[in-house]
């Protein structure tokens, strides 16, 4: 029994990481209906950027503080010079561009950093844990990760629902043509959106790199977990995405608890089960 409670807790904490993977994806899909197939690889790129900074002697917190705005800038530029040119009624061109980007990022990382696995070192925090009594303990880093996932959603919701720029984001998402009549430059809104998405990727990269080993090839699997979290969540809100991330996380730890070989598979099975039972996700959009 205790083992199951522990498994559930670890799953929820893992869900925090998946939610961080998924939030950026959810934001760009929600606002510009863009599917970014390079999302997972961009998270890995973020992890390597942090790694490169720390290898050069920069302390880890400073490296993160630099890489998050750097990734924001990268997203802004990527959207304005490349993806905005491909946006239109047809969703295929941007899809193909991000597919190409995924290959470029993966191979670029392979060329620069080789296929070796790496890890970000957080020292004693790495193994620190909080005992909850009854023999159950939770890791401090996974706890910080879940808190960060919730914090990111609180901040983004604050921006989207309480500021004039946030209203412009939502208006653009609702009806891009009419939004322009309000004086909203949709292209700069899109560039900001991609910037936000990649800034969250950078944060996710930090927690990815401290939790497990990473190498240039692991991006597509992160993309898949993020996709599953977004779809399970149902596209109506970022809280749905968090819930989706937790579903995938819990399914994976439960699967691993039964048999370690089942970890990845059970996450995908949970996704398929949700699709069968609730095809539009747990918290669907009221209007599409």
């Amino acid at each position, binding site marked *: 029994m205790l083992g199951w409670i522990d498994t559930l807790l670890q799953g929820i904490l893992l869900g925090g990481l998946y939610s961080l993977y998924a939030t950026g994806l959810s934001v760009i899909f929600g606002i510009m209906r863009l599917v970014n197939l390079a999302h997972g690889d961009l998270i890995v790129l973020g992890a390597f950027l942090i790694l490169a900074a720390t290898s050069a002697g920069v302390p880890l917190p400073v490296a993160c503080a630099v890489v998050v705005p750097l990734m924001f800038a990268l997203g802004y530029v990527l959207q304005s010079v490349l993806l905005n040119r491909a946006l239109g009624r047809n969703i295929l061109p941007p899809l193909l561009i991000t597919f190409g980007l995924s290959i470029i990022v993966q191979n670029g990382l392979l060329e620069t950093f080789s296929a070796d696995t790496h890890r970000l070192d957080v020292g004693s925090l790495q193994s620190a844990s909080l005992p909850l009594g009854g023999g159950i303990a939770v890791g401090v880093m996974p706890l910080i990760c879940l808190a960060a996932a919730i914090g990111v959603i609180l901040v983004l919701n604050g921006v989207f629902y309480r500021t*004039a720029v946030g*209203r*412009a984001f*939502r*208006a653009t*998402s*609702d*009806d891009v*043509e*009419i*939004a*322009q*009549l*309000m*004086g*909203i*430059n*949709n292209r700069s809104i899109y560039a900001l959106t991609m910037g936000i998405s990649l800034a969250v990727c950078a944060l996710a990269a930090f927690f990815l790199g401290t939790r497990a080993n990473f190498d240039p090839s692991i991006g597509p699997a992160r993309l898949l977990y993020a996709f599953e979290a977004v779809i399970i969540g149902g596209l109506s809100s970022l809280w749905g995405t968090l819930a989706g991330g937790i579903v995938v996380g819990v399914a994976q730890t439960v699967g691993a608890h039964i048999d370690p070989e089942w970890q990845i598979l059970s996450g995908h099975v949970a996704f398929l089960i949700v699709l069968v039972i609730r095809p539009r996700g747990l918290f669907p959009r009221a*209007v599409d």
Partner: protein
Amino acid sequence: MSRLAMLETCDLTAFYGDFQALFGITFALNEGETVAIIGANGAGKSTFLKAIAGLLPRPAAAVRLDGRDIGALPAYEIVKFGVALVPEGRRLFSSLSVEENLLVGAYGRHTGGPWNIETVYQLFPMLRERRHTPSTALSGGQQQMVAIGRSLMSNPRILLCDELSLGLAPIVIRDIYAALADIKARGTSVVLVEQDLVHAMSVADRAYCFQEGRVSLSGRPAELTRDAIHAAYFGL
């Protein structure tokens, strides 16, 4: 027209892909004037307003505001020059509340003027009561009020109105036109696209009739006979 018109189009053409919708529209709107554009379905009335507002590509020199070419500007720049469009079918932002819809209308505002959230609520008092309601929960007439209010929030000098009366009950149409009179009284010039001839002619200083993308008739309502309008409308 002796003085320089505020808004002019000169030989304005517009296309949807290969399909040509406007064939050289020449049009003028003077300061403080209300001009109606009438015509059958598919005559190019809405296309004309969209082309002015910047939602469709058009020749750079074909649209002029205060003598300045604005034909090359995108829609989000046009509104900053004081031209606002109330789109056909309201098109409110469905995930925004009534008040948020109004506030987003002020996003591109660059000048002061009579309109702000308070004066819009004075114009349409029932919107104040429903300010926190999702815009989709309103009746058609109330939605039209939000759409008009949203456009006013940018303090336009020129308000382009596309089919204000579409799908509304006669009593609601009367309210909307009463509000339009208030808006005009504050000095806003209005271009009114309407299928409802009676209402359009009752408020307009001048009228243009469109037929298949061309101006088929223009003049002051009093000077246009029923037969002339009929002929211009249907091309008989």
